[in-house]
């Protein structure tokens, strides 16, 4: 009886091993993709069904290139943004340094290049000290088995062209940014720009901007593409 139990355990273990090995062999062509994902996402474990999808990338544990804000500042310096658990913080208050807290705010998926494959629109919030923020948006695609950056843009703080709304309409990225004038307070821009970014086969080309009136009292954030606001 005891011997039978041991044999049973050994058989089950052997079956499990063969299934795992089979999976690796059968998906040999995808292993490179998984490898590249794992390089950027040490804690991620994409499910086998999503290996070829941009959705397999774990953007909460991901390395991003530095972001330049609308005012020309590179935040929070020239180093990469290394998110772990969706967060990164630089600067130590106790040492008198001004900190910046960077966190993953939104990921949505759309076909923005017209190739029927989804791209990821990823937005990070740079929470500035002592308040206010800059939002950086990246568009990634999965090409040559690696995540490739197609576009990035830093939207300034509310007073300096802050992001009002980000959405995708008919495969086109729609961006609204507040405009600040010196005659109005920091809080409350009266105008905003609406513009489109459309893929031309090589890059996202900026469309002609349209100036519109902000119908709200303040610099209200209207949402990301997946918010359906």
């Amino acid at each position, binding site marked *: 009886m005891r011997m039978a139990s041991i044999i049973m355990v050994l058989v089950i273990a052997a079956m499990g091993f063969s299934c795992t090995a089979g999976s690796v062999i059968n998906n040999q062509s995808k292993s490179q993709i998984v490898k590249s994902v794992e390089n950027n996402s040490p804690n991620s474990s994409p499910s086998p069904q999503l290996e070829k999808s941009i959705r397999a990338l774990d953007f909460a544990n991901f390395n991003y290139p530095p972001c330049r*804000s609308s*005012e020309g*500042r590179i935040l929070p310096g020239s180093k990469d943004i290394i998110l772990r658990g969706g967060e990164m913080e630089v600067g130590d*208050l*106790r040492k008198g340094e*001004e*900190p910046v*807290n960077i*966190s993953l*705010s*939104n990921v949505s998926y759309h076909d923005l290049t017209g190739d029927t494959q989804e791209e990821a629109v990823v*937005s990070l*919030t740079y*929470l*500035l*000290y*002592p*308040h*206010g*923020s*800059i*939002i950086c948006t990246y568009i990634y695609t999965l090409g040559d088995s690696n995540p490739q950056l197609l576009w990035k843009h830093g939207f*300034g*703080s*509310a*007073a*300096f062209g802050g*992001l009002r709304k980000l959405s995708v309409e008919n495969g086109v990225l729609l961006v609204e940014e507040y405009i*600040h004038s*010196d*005659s*109005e*307070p*920091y*809080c*409350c821009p009266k105008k905003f720009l609406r513009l489109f970014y459309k893929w031309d086969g090589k890059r996202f080309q900026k469309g002609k901007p349209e100036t519109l009136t902000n119908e709200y*009292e*303040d*610099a*209200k*954030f209207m*949402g*990301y593409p997946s*918010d359906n606001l």
Partner: protein
Amino acid sequence: MYAYAGNDPINRIDPDGLFSWGALFGGLFRAFFPQKISFSFTYKSLPPISVSFSNNFSNIFVGFAGAEFQVKASNPQKSFADCVNESGLKGEQASTFTQQAADLVNQISSFENTSQALLAFTWYEENRFRMNPNPNDNGKRDNPTKWDVGPFHINVYWTERVAAAGQVNFNGLSKPEVYGARAYPIDPEVDAFAAKLYGKYGPFDGSPLANGRMAARRLNAAGGSDENKAVMYAPGPSRAYRRNAWRQVGGIWNKFFNCWNNR
């Protein structure tokens, strides 16, 4: 010649030299609505002491031994609008500023010893004197701990951090009042009302005074001149603009509060 009729023989008659209609009505009016109220009293063998004052107490006189002294001179109280005009406030700063806002600034200032001009300037820049503004959610609508809240747009996350670092304290202030219950419920486990509100984007539901007092503490913590405090309250990319704005209107705000507080 017509002294018997008050030198006005057409309007006055004086059959017995003692009557005047004008004097009668004037006397009655003054009796019921006197411009100046006077009384006198004596004390022991001292000469009579007289006291008189105008009916709005703007002028007060004391007479003694034949001499009269003015102890309070007329100084018509300036209105809020007078002080706004005198100080040179204009545009949206003048049109959005209210007496209620001025009173709150004075209250915050008296608690935290922060200059009224600095508080008014900061409040205008952050929220244009609104008492219950919507939060700036910093693109994180589902995470109120990252919001900028209240009239002074205090960021919950950084305020908690500077408090933990000992740079400011919450003495005498409650967090739900400072941040509003949407961003900082008393206890979502037990307070069903706060839990319902928690994380729901909407107007500030805390205390403007408490929010302003914490803002004042953070302004004070920056140290240095009022200009430095005003500038350091803004995030890095906005500081050049904030410095320029302070240099343009800091003096004007000082003038306003000098007028308003010394009426």
